[in-house]
Structure formats: structure tokens, C-alpha cells
């Protein structure tokens, strides 16, 4: 509920996009309506989908990462897909430096060779370390769905801070993957660690 308010409603009292009573009604619904929890989940992954798209804009892949100049920038999802249609809708028609964004859902890390960004779902947490290590040295931005992935060596790991979606960055892992992460991205990260994969 608080997250929703942060996203959709500016803190300034004079913002008129939604009147106060509307917000109050929404809060009440979020608290007492049985479907409120599902909505919260949807909202979280809508934000995460947007974040995934935004990561592509603050991260530079090495020039040889692409097979050709117009090769697609593949965003791969391994494990259970928590986004539904959210991510597809977010990246639809988008491109990064001439590379059109595509979504591919994979089963195992061996399928992840052409991926530029690999979202590792919470369901893959038990074998996350294997997946991440299998991709070591390859220009793949690994993104973990929760804060546990920090310890697994994921380059980016989502976490919730006061109900808001934040992320940490493992700069050491990023350097190993020959990815250049914008200082601006580092600036908005919840924390930046330097723990290269062993």
C-alpha cells in the first residue's frame, strides 16, 4: 500500500492527479479487499519490469557482446516468470542503441549464452549460484529477484526498502562480466558491493 502511494502519488499535498479521498479509498481497498495482496504483487513486478528496462539504459555491454549491429538485446527470465505480461508490455517496441529489446524465457543456464540480461526468479534460488557461475566472464547482466542473490554473486539484486523496490549492485561481478555500469545507476543503488566471483 505504501509502495503504491510512493509510485503513483507524489508526497506534495497540492498534487491534484488523484484527489485525497480517492487515495483513502484505495488504501482501504488495499487493506481489506481479498484481492489486495495480488494487486500488490502485480505492482511490485510492474516496477521491477520497468527497472529491468531501465537497467539496459544505464549499462553498457562490450562491443563484441552482440553478433551484429542490429542483433536483439535479449532479456531472459529463468525460473517461474513473476511478471506475466508486464515485462513484455514494458519493453514492447523499445530498443537500446539500435538493438531491439526481446523477452525470452529459459529453463537452464546453458540457454543463456545470447542473453544480455538474465532475470533469476526466486524459484531458481536454490541453484542460483550454479547459474551465476556458469555465466561468469560472459557479458550477461544477472539480476536476482531478492536480496538473497547478493550473496550468490548476482550483479544486481532487488530488495524492498520500506516497501519500495531498490537494488544493490555488485561492481566486482559486473567488471568480471565486462559490463560498464553508469555512475548514475550506482548513485541510485541502495548499496554497491565489490565482491568478485570466486
Amino acid at each position: 500500500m505504501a509502495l503504491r502511494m510512493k509510485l503513483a502519488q507524489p508526497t506534495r499535498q497540492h498534487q491534484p492527479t488523484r484527489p485525497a479521498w480517492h487515495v483513502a479509498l484505495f488504501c482501504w481497498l488495499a487493506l481489506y479487499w481479498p484481492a489486495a495482496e495480488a494487486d500488490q504483487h502485480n505492482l511490485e513486478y510492474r516496477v521491477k519490469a520497468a527497472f529491468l528496462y531501465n537497467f539496459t539504459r544505464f549499462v553498457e555491454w562490450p562491443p563484441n557482446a552482440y553478433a551484429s549491429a542490429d542483433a536483439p538485446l535479449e532479456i531472459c527470465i529463468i525460473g517461474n516468470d513473476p511478471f506475466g505480461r508486464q515485462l513484455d508490455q514494458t519493453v514492447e517496441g523499445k530498443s537500446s542503441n539500435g538493438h531491439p529489446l526481446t523477452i525470452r524465457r529459459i529453463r537452464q543456464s546453458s540457454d543463456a549464452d545470447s542473453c544480455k540480461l538474465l532475470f533469476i526468479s526466486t524459484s531458481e534460488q536454490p541453484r542460483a549460484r550454479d547459474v551465476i557461475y556458469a555465466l561468469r566472464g560472459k557479458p550477461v547482466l544477472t539480476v536476482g529477484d531478492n536480496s538473497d542473490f547478493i550473496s550468490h554473486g548476482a550483479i544486481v539484486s532487488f530488495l524492498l526498502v520500506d516497501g519500495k523496490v531498490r537494488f544493490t549492485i555488485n561492481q566486482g561481478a559486473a567488471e568480471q562480466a565486462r559490463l560498464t555500469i553508469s555512475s548514475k545507476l550506482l548513485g541510485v543503488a541502495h548499496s554497491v558491493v565489490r565482491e568478485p566471483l570466486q
Partner: protein
Amino acid sequence: MILHRFYHSSISEKLMISVVATSGMAVLLASIAFVGYQWNSTRSSIAQNLDSTMSIIGFNSTAAISFNDALAAEQTLSALRAQPQINLACIYTALDADRTVYFSGYRRDANYAPCPIQPKGDKLLLMSSLLTRLKPISLHTDVIGFLYVERALDDFWRSILGYLLAIIVAMLGSFFIAIGMGRFMQNFISRPILNLASTTQEVSESKDFSIRVAKGSDDEIGRLIDNFNDMLAQIGNREQALQEARAELEVRVSETDKANAELKTTLERLRHTQEQLVQTEKMASLGGLVAGIAHEINTPIGVGVTAASTLMTKTASVSEDYDAKSLTDSGLRRYIELASQSAQIILSNLNRASELIQSFKQVAVDQSSSERRRFQVKPYLHEIMLSLRPNLKKTPLHVEIECDDRLEINSYPGALAQIITNLVMNSLIHAYEPNQEGTIRITVEQRGNKVHLRYSDDGKGMPPDHVTRVFDPFFTTKRGTGGSGLGMHIVFNLVNQQLGGTVTLQSEVGKGTQVDLVIPAGEERKDENH
């Protein structure tokens, strides 16, 4: 009004006004240009600085906006604290092309108004105290948000005010410098002109053309002074020439006066001589008259003497005869008859002589005197003709007198006698050849109180140039043979002056000469004179 005042001001004032106005205008124009340029450049540099600051802030905010990190955005915005002119900065996320939503904000302090709901940026910076700008925040090609900034312009206005103060100082400075320059320029322009003007006045008052104006410079004023000096020199020369000409003229005038005086004396002498001549002529004609009279009287006297001597001879013869007693009766009778006849002859001739003397006496008295009297015209004309008989007798000329017997006038008979005598003598001398037959006609008639006397002859007449000069003194065609040239002049003078009448002469060659006299009959003047 201002122009009028300028028109009447002195040259130095005009000069001063010109210099001050020119420099003032120059400084003013330069200042306007300077302030305009500064205005524009300061404005654009402020806008440019703000734009670059906003670009940096926007660039640094992209990640915060992308990842919905308002706190990070606020930290980025707080960097603006280093720029004290920026009062307010707000970031809005772009929902779509038209709608924006407030995302994050920065306020210098609580005195400033919070971020507006819908931000709007200024297009131009003019007179406002606040510059507001709205700038899109782009990530790659997408516009992900907007940055709105309010910037105070007090520094801008302070600098403009500073420029204006500097301009006022510059204008005051240039004003004083212009006054100084004007004073300095007066030495070269207005002072020489004033000097020239005062010298002009001095020259015109003193009439001293030897004064010269000192030349100060070699410019137009110097040339003006040179020309003025040249002009003075020329005027001086002309003045001198004029004086000389005037002196010469005075000498000439005095010479002319002297000549005139001499001329007048000469003329006076001439007139005197002329009068003497006229008098002499009168005397001469009187002498002629006396000769005529003597000649005329000689005849009766001679006849009387002859008769008396015959009687005396006969008486002596008769007396002898009586003594001798030889006197016969018939002899005595013849003697008595002879004596009677002789006495008759002597008496008649003496009477004739007496008569002649009587009439001559009258004419002679009249001619020698200028007495005015009443007389009968016809008999008087006959008496005059009688006095002229010695001259006329030698010629075959015939004299006709047509006149009313009773016509009587009150005038100067002597003058009339002189006039007629001169006319007849002229006819005799000039109009007729010796022994030429001719008729001289005198007609007299009274018209009103005027008497018209026409004298005409049928002689050979005169050419026109003689007619026009006939009354001039000393005009004669016979100077060598005794003509004095005064006869007709005397006629003219007598008619005009003594008789108070007019005389005209008409003549043509071959047609004789005609002289018309119009003289007053004199009745009305009787009381005045007698």
C-alpha cells in the same frame, strides 16, 4: 523656442552648446548601445548558464527518475545550493506527452513559493525580477521528465544599475570635458571672430581704413581675416582716390567759377558795348535825318533866295530907271508884277520850309526822346515818310499807307518812327536793286485794344537761315558796306521792351518780306503814364 534662443545666442555660446550637445549625444548613444549590448549579452549568458546547470542537473537526475528515487533526485538538486540565484528547482516525471507529475523539489528556504503544479517556463527575459525555465530531461531519446527552475534576477538588475551609474558618471565627465573643450576651442574659433567683429565696428566708427585685423590661424577664419584686410585696403585706396578726385573737382569748380565770372564780366562789357552801339546807331540815323532835313529845306530856301535875288536885281534896275527918269509905265508895271510874283514865290517857299521844319522837328524830338504821348497814326506815318524822302527820292519805289484817318494811339512815337525808319532803310538797302521798281506797303488797323501794323515790301526776300537770325544783334549780310547788323535788333528790342508788343517776320526768296507788329493801343495805360 529653443531654436529661436539658439539663433540669438553668441557664437561662443553656440560653440559651447554644439560641443556639449555633440559629446552628450555621442556618450548617450554609446551608452545606449553599451547598455543594450550588455543587457542582451548578460541576459543570454544568464540563460545559457542556467541552461547548462539545468542540463547537468537533468542529466544527473535521469537514474533517480528512472529508478523512482526521489531522495537521490533531491540530493542532486541540493547541489544548486552553490548557486545562490536559484530559488527553486523542481523535477517532474513525464507520464506522457502532456501530463507531468511532481517528483522531487528543492527550495532555497521556506520564504519561496513551493513547486507549481503545472510548471511553465519563460520564453523571454525582459523586465521581470524572476527568470523561470522549464527543460525536458532526456534519457537517450526518451523524455523521462522535466526540470523547472526559478532564478532570481537581482544580480542582473544590479549589473544594469551599475552600468547606468557608470554611464551617468561618464556623461557628467564628458559634459565637463566638453565644456573645457568648448572653452579651449573658443581660442581658435569664436575669439578670432569676435576680434574681427570688434575691429569691423571700430573701422566703421572711426572710418580709419588703415586698421588691420591680426591673423591667428591659417584656417577658414584666417582666410576670412585676410580677405577682410584686403577689403579694408581696397576701401582705403578707394577712399583716397575719392578724396583726390574731390580735391581735383573743387579746383576745377573754382576755375570754372572764375571763368564764369570772367565770362559774366565780358558779357556785361559786351552788352554795354552793344548799348553804346545801339545809341550810336540811333545817333547815326538821327544824323541821316538831319541831313535829309537840310536837303529838303534847301530847295524852298533856294527858290526863295533866287526869287529874292531876282527881285533885288529888278528893284535895282527899276530904281536906276527911276533916277534916270527913264522908267516907263510899262516897265513899272512889269516890275510890280515881278515883285508881286517874287513875294508870292518867297512866301510860299518859306511857308514850305517852315512846314518842313515843323514836321522834322517833331520827328527829331520824338526820335531823340522816349516820350509817350497820344498821336494820330496816319499823319505820323506820313511825317516819317517825309523824313525819309531824301532816301526814297533816289529810288523808283512807291510807298502806300493804308490806315484809318482817325486812328489814334497812346504810345511812343519816337520808337515807332525808329522802327519804320529801320524797316524802310532795310528794304531800300537789301530788298531792291538800285533803280528797281517796287511798292512798300504799310497797313494799320485796330483790333480791340491792339494795333496790328503790317509792313511789307515786294523785294527779293530772304532765305530761311537769314529769317531765323534776322533779329540777332550784329547779324548782317553787308558788313563791309556799312551795315551794322543792329537795325532789326533795335526793331525787336523797341517792339518788345518799349512798346510792349510782339514782332514777327516772314520772308521767302523772291516773294518779298513781311513784318507784323502787334502793339497795345495804349488806351488803358493812359492813366498810368500821364
